[in-house]
C-alpha cells in the first residue's frame, strides 16, 4: 500500500452557536487545516466530507458546506453521510490509486439545532425500533447495564473514566466539558438514566474538524514528522440491538486486528466513546493495556461534535505523533446505535 500521512489537523467546538450557520462554523477550521498543511488549497487533489442531513433538518447539509472549501476551479469531491472518519477512509483509498497525492477531509454538525439525543434515534429501523423512539441515552444505559453485569464493572469505573477525561480536557482548546472532579464527587451526582450520570454522557455541541492527508514524499516535504497511516479498517454489526451482545464490540476488535493494532505497543489511543461505559467496552475490544494513554484530549466526553468527533480522534493521535509525544497511536471512530459500526486507524511516526 502507498504511504499516506496526516499532515495537518484543526478542530473547533462550542456548546451552541445560534449566530453561525454550518458554513461560517466550518470556514475557519478548513482554513486553519489547509493553511498549516504547507499545500496550496488549489493543489489539494481530493476533498471528502462527512455530515448528517438530520442534524440540520434539511435535505443537503453538505451542499452548502462545500461553500467553505473554495471549490473553484471545480474540484474532485465526494461526501459520506457518516462521521468524517469514513470520509478520511474514502480519501485514503483515493490516494492509494495514485491519481492524487493529497486530500482535504472535513466533518461538521450543529447538535444545538435540535434535541440531538432524540434526533439520532431516527437511525433506528423504521418498523420495529423507531416507533418506540428510545433516545441515545436510553440505549446507552441499557448497554452500560449489560456491560456491568457481564464484566463486573461498576458505576465507579465509569466515573473514573469521566474524571480522567474531564481533567485531560483542560488542555484541549475546543473542549466543552473540562474540569477537575474527583470520582467521589461525580458519584454523588444523581442518576440521569440508571446507571448513567451526567458525567457519563456526552454534552451536545456544535463543531467541525478538518484533516489534510498527503502521500509519501509530498508529506515528508511539508511536514517535519508526518503521522503515517499504517493500518485502517472498519466493520459493521447487525442493526437490531437484540441480536448483538452489547457488552462487547466485535466490529471494533475485528477492525483493530485488521488495522494491525496489536503488532506493536500503542503509546496513545483516542477512542470515540460518547458515554464513559463505551470507553471500557472499546478498551476490552482493542486490548488496550496500562501503558497506553487513553483519550489525552478528553475524548468525546470533552467535546463530541457529531459527524466530526470520529475524525477528531484521528487528528488528535496524529497531532501527538507529529509533536513527538508518541511514536505509535490508535484512533477509533463509531457510527450507529450502540456502536454498530466501528473504524480503527493505526498511525506511526518515522
Amino acid at each position, binding site marked *: 500500500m502507498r504511504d499516506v500521512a496526516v499532515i495537518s489537523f484543526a478542530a473547533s467546538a462550542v456548546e451552541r452557536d445560534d449566530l453561525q450557520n454550518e458554513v461560517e462554523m466550518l470556514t475557519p477550521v478548513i482554513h486553519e487545516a489547509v493553511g498549516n498543511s504547507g499545500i496550496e488549497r488549489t493543489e489539494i487533489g481530493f476533498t471528502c466530507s462527512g455530515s*448528517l442531513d438530520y442534524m440540520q433538518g*434539511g435535505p443537503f447539509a453538505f451542499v452548502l458546506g462545500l461553500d467553505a472549501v473554495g*471549490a473553484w476551479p471545480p474540484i474532485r469531491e465526494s461526501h459520506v453521510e457518516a462521521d468524517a472518519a469514513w470520509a478520511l477512509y474514502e480519501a485514503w483509498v483515493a490516494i492509494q490509486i495514485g491519481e492524487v497525492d493529497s486530500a482535504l477531509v472535513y466533518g461538521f454538525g450543529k447538535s444545538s439545532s435540535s434535541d440531538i439525543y432524540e434526533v439520532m434515534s431516527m*437511525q433506528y429501523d423504521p418498523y420495529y425500533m423507531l416507533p418506540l423512539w428510545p433516545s441515545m441515552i436510553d440505549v446507552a444505559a441499557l448497554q452500560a447495564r449489560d456491560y456491568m453485569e457481564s464484566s463486573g464493572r461498576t458505576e465507579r469505573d465509569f466515573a473514573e473514566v469521566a474524571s480522567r477525561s474531564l481533567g485531560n480536557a483542560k488542555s484541549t482548546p475546543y473542549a466543552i466539558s473540562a474540569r477537575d472532579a474527583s470520582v467521589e464527587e461525580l458519584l454523588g451526582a444523581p442518576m440521569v438514566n440508571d446507571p448513567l450520570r451526567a458525567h457519563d454522557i456526552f454534552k451536545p455541541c456544535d463543531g467541525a474538524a478538518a484533516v489534510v492527508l498527503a502521500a509519501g514524499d509530498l508529506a515528508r516535504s511539508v511536514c517535519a514528522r508526518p503521522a503515517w497511516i499504517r493500518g485502517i479498517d472498519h466493520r459493521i454489526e447487525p442493526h437490531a440491538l437484540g441480536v448483538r451482545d452489547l457488552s462487547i464490540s466485535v466490529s471494533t476488535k475485528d477492525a483493530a486486528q485488521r488495522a494491525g493494532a496489536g503488532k506493536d505497543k500503542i503509546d496513545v489511543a483516542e477512542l470515540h466513546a460518547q458515554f464513559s461505559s463505551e470507553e471500557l467496552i472499546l478498551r476490552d475490544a482493542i486490548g488496550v493495556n496500562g501503558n497506553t494513554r487513553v483519550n489525552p484530549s478528553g475524548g468525546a466526553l470533552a467535546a463530541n461534535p457529531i459527524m466530526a468527533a470520529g475524525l477528531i480522534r484521528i487528528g488528535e493521535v496524529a497531532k501527538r505523533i507529529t509533536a513527538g509525544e508518541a511514536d505509535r497511536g490508535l484512533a477509533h471512530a463509531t457510527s450507529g446505535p450502540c456502536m454498530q459500526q466501528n473504524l480503527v486507524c493505526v498511525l506511526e511516526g518515522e
Partner: protein
Amino acid sequence: MAAERCAVVGVGQTRHRSARKDVSMAGLVREAAVEALEDAGMTWSDIDALVVGKAPDMFEGIAMPELYLADALGAVGKPMIRVHTAGSVGGSTAIVAAKLVEAGVHERVLTVAFEKQSESNATWGLSVPMPFAPPLVAGAGGYFAPLIRAYISRSGAPRHIGHLVAVKDRRAALRNPKAHLHLPDIDLKMVEESFLLWDPLRYLDTCPSSDGAMAMVLGSERVADASAGPVAWVHGMALRSEPTMFAGRDQINPQAGRDCAQDLYRQAGITDPRRDFDCAEVYVPFSWYEPMWLENLGFCELGEGWKLTEAGATGPDGDIPWNMSGGVLSSNPIGASGMVRFGEAAQQVRRRAGDYQVELKTGKALGHAYGGGSQFFSMWVVGSDKPQ
C-alpha cells in the same frame, strides 16, 4: 503506483414504480442486490465490502438507513460505506466502490443505490425552508426551469425541442420492462397538451417520482477474467464539484461538468465522444437537459445540442443513442438514478440490454449523473474490452 483494473461483473435492478408497496426498503434493495449477485454467479459470502448510496434521507424519513439495511444486504462483519452527493450520488457511489477495487483494497464489492420516494414527497423534501437561507420552495423543476429558459435564449432553440426528448425517452421505455412509465400512446401532441408546471416545462417534460434500486457487483481483473458471463471494464471515472453560491458560475453550461468529461475522456482515450461512444446513458430529469448536456459533454459545439436532438441523432436509430432504457424521464428513484445510468451503460457493452440493445462498434458507453444546482458530476466510461 498504477491502479488495478476493475470491471462490472453483475448488474441487478428493481422494477421501478411510483409506489412499491409490496416491499419494505430492505426488500427493495435486496431485489436489486440478489439479481446482481445471481448475474455475477456469486452469493452474499463472496462479497468483501459494500458501498451504499442514496439522496437525502428525508425522502424516506430515516437517518442513515444503510445502518438498518446492513443485515438485509449481508454486510455484517464487512466494511460498509454510505455515499450522499445529491442527484449525482448513484454515479459517485459506483465510483467509490470501483475505487476500492482499483486501489487493490478489495476484489469483490457490492454497490447498491436506492430511493423509496413513496415514503414521502420528494419535491417538498427538497424544499425545506432553512434558517439563514433564502426560501426556495420550488422543488427541482422550479430550480432548473430558469436555467432552461436561459439555454433557449442563448442557443435560439425552438420551443418544441424539449418535447421531442420527452417523446423519445418514453418511447424507449416501452422496450424496458423495468421502467416506471409506460405510455404507449405518447406523442408530441400529448406532451404539448400536458399542463404547464414551470415554463417551459410541461408535466410530460419532467421525470416521475419512483421507488427503485440498482445494484452492481464490481470485480478485480482476476475476478472479471474468471467470470462466466460478459463483463464491462471500467475505462475511466471522474468526479467534479463546484460551489452553489458563486457569481462566476455558468449554471447553464457548468465548468464542473466540462472538466469532469475532459478528465474522463483523457483516461478512456475518447477524443470525439459522438464517434467514440456507441451510446450514452445521461442524467436527463427534465427534457431540455438532453441538448444542454450534449453541449456540456462535448458531443457537439456550443449552441448545437438542440440540432442533434431535432435531427434524431440521439434516438435509438441515431448515430449516438442517448438513454435507450428510457432514462430518468421514465424512471427516477433519485438516489438510484445515477447508478441506473452507470449500470445501463454497462449492460450495453455486455450486450445484456435486451430489447433496447444498441449495435456495438467501439464497444464503449458513457454513464453520467449530476446533482445539486447543476454542480455535482459523476461519470464513467465502460467498455467491452479490457483497457490497455
